[in-house]
């Protein structure tokens, strides 16, 4: 059995340098945010207290980081050891996604110097969905680093440390499955309280169910995209067989998701809103079309052998889950009284800077740490 190895190669590639530049520019905007306040950099307002940073960096960022969770679910809960080779890369993306979501939260909260309050029991509000999300995400970031530690220890650590970590690892793997289940569903519950401010196309008490299922198939889609992209550039072991199987699982999950989604919408009697031809209706259709098409394609076994088709389907699914979250957090959200929101350049740049940092870390890690199995 092949083992994971660093891919080696130059670190300072053009991609890396461009990402570095974007990150440096975003630092200027971050500085401005801390000196002059959120209003100076962002377009967030009293109608839209949450903008791009929460919707993209935190909600979508952590959802995109669900590869690790989805793979762990497959390997440990469904007992499919064969997928093990995909766990490490997936875990690494999760690590970045979640860690940087944490960074984004520090940028986004107004009173960041008091952020530790949520970890103080006497400040905790058990009714708050956001508290659950925050604590869970916080814990999960820690768990991810611990889960990932063997990879780092392989390079730097002693044998004793490795052996110890291996012994207790099962606890963290279990936590690594429990915590995302809790907070990814809760990220849906977060918007339940918005009630009348969220369009009925997205507001439902089933938000947690939809968020949970979608984050799982999104996790698989991310694994497919990432393996394909890395595979198209670097000489790694060809995992397309495994990817094909994962694609099949995705198709089934999407089917279940869509049944719940439309049944719920129909039962609440708001299906007509989808076909009104306005922005919200069209966004709803887009979101679901981006799921229906790849689902249909991936149900055909032949397509699950074609890396290009699988890649494109996975991209579509990633987009769909992203659009779904944008819709739920921003586009479908209307506070009334004439409020509007569109992210500012500075806001976008900071998000972009965080993504760039993620890409840089990704490139560094796969080249210097044993993540992928080389062909």
């Amino acid at each position, binding site marked *: 059995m092949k083992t994971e190895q660093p891919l080696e190669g130059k670190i300072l590639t053009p991609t890396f340098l461009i990402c570095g530049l974007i990150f440096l520019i975003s630092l200027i905007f971050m500085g401005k945010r*801390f000196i*002059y*306040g*959120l*209003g*100076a950099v*962002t377009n*967030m*307002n*009293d109608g839209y*207290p*949450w903008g791009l940073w929460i919707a993209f960096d935190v909600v979508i960022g952590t959802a995109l980081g669900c590869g690790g969770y989805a793979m762990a*679910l497959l390997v440990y*809960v*469904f*007992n499919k*050891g064969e997928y093990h080779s995909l766990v490490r890369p997936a875990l690494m993306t999760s690590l970045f996604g979640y860690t940087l979501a944490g960074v984004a939260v520090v940028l*986004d*909260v*107004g*009173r*960041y110097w*008091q*952020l530790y*309050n949520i970890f103080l029991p006497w*400040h*905790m*509000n*058990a*009714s*708050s*969905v956001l*508290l*659950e999300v925050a604590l869970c995400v916080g814990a999960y970031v820690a768990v991810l680093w611990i889960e990932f530690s063997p990879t780092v220890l392989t390079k730097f650590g002693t044998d004793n440390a490795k052996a110890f970590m291996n012994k207790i690892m099962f*606890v963290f793997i279990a*936590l690594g*499955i*429990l915590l995302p*289940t809790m907070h990814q*569903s809760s990220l*849906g*519950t*977060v*918007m*339940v*309280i*918005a*009630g*009348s*401010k969220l369009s009925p196309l997205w507001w439902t*008490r089933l938000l*947690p*169910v939809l968020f*949970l299922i979608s984050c*799982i198939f999104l996790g698989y889609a991310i694994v497919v995209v990432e393996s394909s992209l890395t595979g198209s550039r670097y000489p790694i072991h060809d995992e397309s067989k495994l990817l094909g199987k994962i694609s099949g*699982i995705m198709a089934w999950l999407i089917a279940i998701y869509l049944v719940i989604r439309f049944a719920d919408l129909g039962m609440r009697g708001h299906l007509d809103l989808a076909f009104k031809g306005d922005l919200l209706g069209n966004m709803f259709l887009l979101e679901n079309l981006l799921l229906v098409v790849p689902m249909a394609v991936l149900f055909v076994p032949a397509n699950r052998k074609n890396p290009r088709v699988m890649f494109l389907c996975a991209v579509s699914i990633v987009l769909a889950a992203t659009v779904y979250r944008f819709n739920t957090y921003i586009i479908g959200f209307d*506070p*009334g*009284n004439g*409020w509007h929101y569109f992210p500012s350049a500075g806001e976008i740049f900071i998000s972009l800077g965080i993504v760039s940092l993620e890409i840089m870390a990704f490139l560094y890690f796969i080249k210097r740490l044993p993540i992928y199995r080389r062909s």
Partner: protein
Amino acid sequence: MKIKRRDFLKGLAGSAVLAMAPPAIAASSEKNRLPDALGILYDSTLCVGCQACMVACKKANNMPMEYSGSQRLWENPVDLSSKTLNVIKEYENGAAKIKDREIDGYAFIKRQCMHCVDPACVSACPATAMTKDPKTGIVSYNKDACIGCRYCAVACPFDIPKFEWDNPFPKIVKCQLCNHLVAKGQIAACASECPTGASIFGPVKDLLIEAERRQTMIPGKYYEFPVAEVSSTTKQVHKVKQYIPYLYGKNDGGGTQTFMMAAVPFNKLGLPTLPDRSYASMAENIQHTLYKGMILPIVVFGGLIFLVKRSEKNKKE
């Protein structure tokens, strides 16, 4: 595919049970009115739009002025904000000639914190910065607990909590029903300064009785209305308009402690149409069903440990 259908469904059921549970269990977590709750009854038909309440509010709460446009002539907030806790807005239709008429008429509406019976902001706040007074029911804010996440503003159906966007060390700002005055035995400044009795302050139970009395008045006849306080002996006689037979806030969004009466439909006055059950209680229902005593997560955790152990054993074999 090596995953058996049975395996797949089993695993799915295990991981999704957390999320599937809430709609099935519809235990009520709705809150009831506090017996000694305080509030305000705002009667749009009595309001003359003098904005004395806005001036009084600024003074009583030491709030900064808010200007719009380049000239700093007037204090003219267009809406509630981190500088304005109380605002009088005007509904206008067509020629806007006759007060309290929906078509070709105009009407005033006062916007301020509704002090919900089951406040979404209190339910939402992760750091317990928003609290509802167990006696008076006044919803107030503690900046020393607040982390500035603004979830309260997302959650509030009335868009009340406002954030200081231009302050590097911002806080949330909202109407606290002049609780510093209430503590001294006084009443909210907006009500005490209202010259016509459009805003009256008092115990919620008395306000409800007063509102009911107004609903039974015959339009066009003259009646006495208390000024400033519901129990006030100072009364004014006004000609009664045709009220919309609905007391906004009695049940809306689970009920509020600020009530609105008007002769123009409330949705025209910018008040949201809300179900009788608070969204906060719906969210809390899901939350408490899943995480009460952390029992469910612990059980699931136990199961997961078993599964992981099993899978590691398999791997070794």
